[in-house]
């Protein structure tokens, strides 16, 4: 079992004719993902990575019955690509693109409330159900099938923690990178809710970072709604206030909220052990299983 994606998921890749789009479409197909089409305006009729390319996402959905999309479209055009995905009633749209202007995402966020499509990202590594499907740029070889769900705001940090788990023989149900931008689609609570409902997920790792209050809200959710145990990690303990640390979202306001300390305290209060190092997170998961 898994959440959101499995080997039945039929994927359209938006931006498949670009360098990143093509490379990762091939990687996804190699992994076993059921990539059925690409969608690029003006490139309809071509074939890339062995799949047909359509001018619009609508055509890809009509012709190939796609139900999920992965978006590799440059930042200037990415919001439009997400709007297009939302207009086709796909079940899931995963936006990998980094650097979409925040005000564009505010408009997307508004539209998202009016549709049934789930958005994941942007600025995220994607989602993987080991052994079945990966949508995005995650390195498939470090993942293994198993019982632990993983949700993270940071891509490379996800890899670091998964690597620690896999090396100890602890596999994963699904790993989902929600992205580190200030405005995102699927958030911690959405993912935790799905893992809680998934019978095969026996424990969850939640990796957060400084900025915003999403981790604090997730801690509340865990305390009141989850039976599945959760282990946590928070990046950015040493970050100085007021500085943007790479991610748009990773900035501490200086007013006490959004700091690593406030997030760690909230998680500890919810009964979630927070590791000081990625290895300690793996230790904590071993204890929880």
């Amino acid at each position, binding site marked *: 079992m898994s959440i959101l994606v499995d080997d039945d998921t039929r994927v359209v890749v938006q931006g498949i004719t670009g360098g*990143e789009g093509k490379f*990762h479409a091939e990687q996804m197909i190699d992994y076993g993902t059921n990539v059925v089409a690409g969608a690029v305006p003006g490139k309809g009729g071509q074939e890339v990575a062995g799949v047909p390319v359509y001018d619009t996402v609508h055509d890809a959905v009509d012709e190939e019955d796609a139900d999920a999309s992965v978006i590799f479209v440059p*930042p*200037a055009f990415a919001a439009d690509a997400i709007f297009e995905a939302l207009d086709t009633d796909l079940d899931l749209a995963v936006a990998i693109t*980094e650097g979409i*202007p*925040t*005000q*564009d*995402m*505010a*408009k997307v*966020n*508004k*539209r998202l409330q009016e549709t049934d499509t789930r958005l994941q990202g942007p600025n995220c*590594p994607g989602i993987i159900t080991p052994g079945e499907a990966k949508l995005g*740029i*995650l*390195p498939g070889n*470090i993942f293994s099938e198993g019982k632990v769900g993983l949700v*993270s*705001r*940071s*891509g*490379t*940090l*996800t*890899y*670091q923690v998964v*690597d620690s788990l896999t090396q100890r023989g602890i596999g994963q149900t699904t790993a989902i990178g929600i992205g*580190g931008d*200030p*405005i995102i689609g699927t958030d911690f609570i959405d993912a935790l809710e799905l893992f809680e409902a998934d019978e095969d997920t026996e424990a969850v790792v939640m*990796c957060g*970072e*400084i900025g915003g*209050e999403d981790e604090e809200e997730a801690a509340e959710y865990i305390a009141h709604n989850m039976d599945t145990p959760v282990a946590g*990690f928070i*990046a*950015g*303990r*040493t*970050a*100085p206030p*007021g*500085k*943007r*640390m*790479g*991610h*748009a979202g*990773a900035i501490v306001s*200086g*007013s*006490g909220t959004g700091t*690593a300390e406030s997030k760690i305290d909230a998680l500890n209060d919810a009964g979630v052990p927070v590791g*000081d*190092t*990625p*290895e300690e997170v793996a230790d904590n998961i071993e204890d929880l299983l």
Partner: protein
Amino acid sequence: MKLHEYQAKQVFAEVGIPTPGSTLATTVDEVVEAASDLGYPVAVKAQVHVGGRGKAGGIKLAENEDEAREAAEDILGMDLKGYTVDKVLVEEAVDFTNELYVGVTMDRGEGQPVVMVSEKGGVNIEEVAEEDPDAIAREHVDPAFGLHPYQARKVVYDAGIPREVAGDVASILTTLYDLYEDRDGSDVEINPLMVTSDDEVIAADAVMNIDEDALFRQPELAEMEEEAAEDDLEAKANEYGFDYVRLDGNVGIIGNGAGLVMTTLDLVDYYGGEPANFLDIGGGAKAERVANALDMVFSDENVDSVVFNIFGGITRGDEVAKGINTALEQFDEIPKPVVVRLAGTNAEEGREILNDELVTVEETLEGAVQRAVEYADEEATEVDQ
């Protein structure tokens, strides 16, 4: 990206938000000349990206030439929370009866812009927000429609702004929202918005922070960014296109992905070291970018050792390894010890390529960080002796 006050006021002036007359100056003589042109009294204001300039001695009033000279001598060249002041804004001092606050920012929790108005301007608005949140009236904005005029009026009335100036404040707020939207602001604020004895409103300060991800469609503001860089390292980071933050320690840190780089900083601290910087080379980095990253970190004279932490996904270990070799082979002697940890995509190929006469290769993140901290301690001790 933060604009300096003088830059933000240029942008304000373009859209008709009233500001006091002012001139930028870099020498004491220029300050005195500007002040006599503007007419006394004037305010001399340090142009650095530091909050609480006034309290820190970075803003002084001058009633006459002697005071202007004295203020200029005090402020130019002063160290303001780690930044050297090399330019000041000389500005007409406004005779005011009241100080207000207006601002626009993104409420990330709601995923919507929010406009804010308060009659308690002129002080640290963050403190007001914390101690007396009701003193700031707020209104969320549907980004698809923009700020409706009725919303601007509502928030101004909610804030208890005096009737005499309510219409003008609502109009300035509307202009400020349009500016926020058109120029991809992340925070756009006026604090204080001064009310004069003639019931005119005038922006005595100007804050404009711009969404860096949107600079591709704001070429004018991108040019201002070059000018706004506070020191050589930041200017260099802008040039190379890195996310870079200078910190106080001596262990240089380079990695890919913000979360992993922050984790590396945290581990350096955990193992008893002090991070000198945050440098994210981003996704899919090629050899040249890696070389530029090393160049940046070696340019910081506080750095005693460097830890390079790469977990390849989209980034490939062999590319990174080539970049590290290329960068280091230029030196007759490596300036500071470099520890490399490669994992993920093509990591093994990368580790084989790395020239271990130039760098220390570690298998694990923990091992790499500990080694870098040890090297930094050794280097620091040598310098002391």
